[in-house]
């Protein structure tokens, strides 16, 4: 029942192809953001969609991504953000000490 990530931690959303009922939109794959909040564990929809509806619960997080990190030509204020839900197995650790791209 571990929680791998904590609020405000910097994370990267995995950039991989995955067939089936995947809830990670393509437009955020490979993008970096921060954990906005930790949500409960839910059945993995990638398995549930194929009838595996017990066990296999995975932690869900809300991730906040700066719009300018999503769209290089975003023309709104730098504070504008997008938030969405990402399952733990789609999140990767980012070395926060580098401070790269972060604020």
């Amino acid at each position: 029942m571990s929680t791998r990530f904590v609020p405000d931690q910097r994370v990267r959303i995995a950039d991989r192809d995955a067939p089936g009922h995947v809830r990670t939109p393509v437009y955020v794959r490979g993008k970096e953001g921060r954990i906005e909040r930790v949500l409960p564990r839910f059945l993995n929809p990638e398995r549930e969609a194929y009838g595996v509806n017990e066990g296999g619960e995975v932690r869900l997080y809300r991730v906040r991504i700066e719009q300018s990190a999503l769209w290089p030509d975003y023309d709104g204020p730098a504070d504008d953000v997008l938030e969405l839900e990402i399952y733990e197995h789609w999140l990767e650790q980012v070395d926060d000490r580098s401070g790269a791209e972060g604020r």
Partner: protein
Amino acid sequence: MTNAHETGTVDHGDHTHGTPGAPDPHAPIETAAEEPDYFDVLHQAIRELLVDKGLITADEVRAMVETLDAHRPALGSALVARAWTDPDFKERLLADGTAAIEEFGIDNYDGTRLIVLEQTPEVHNLVVCTLCSCYPRPVLGLPPDWYKSRPYRARAVREPRALLREFGTDVPQDVTIRVHDSNANMRYLVLPMRPAGTEGLSEEELAALVTRDTMIGVTTPRSP
């Protein structure tokens, strides 16, 4: 569907017609059924199989449709009006939306969890589901067609400010926009700001200011 009774342009008393652009009250109510597509056939086959095997009953299917139709934006409007008038309730609503709507008496029939997003002078929230049509159905009913359209789903995350301007909503540059992609298990309801000049209004009068679109975040409530 247009309804002559709502237009006020057709007098059924003496059957006067002829208002330009008014709907024809004698128009057929139902046009010929279109050919079912692949998914219509698939849906019907699965439903009939489930009923034949005794896993669900036809009455349960009917009752679910009735439940879906019974949940309307008015529930969300009443909820927001309560939050505007009861600070303790508002606090509970923002802390745990699911528990608060159940406390308010709304049947959370689909078992989803609700996050309530507060509009403030500094932050404007906007809700979209880029993957399909996830929507807080227990509090708002079925989503409008535009919410499910590809242009809305794509532009809400790509250029929210331009999209909002087309809805008549000009969000100032010093207000942060937070777009919420409702892509997995949670559902989102926007809690709009109470307009100025509404101090004397009753909860019921306040609810009338809270339209569906204000709770999606594409517009804001107006003073009466």
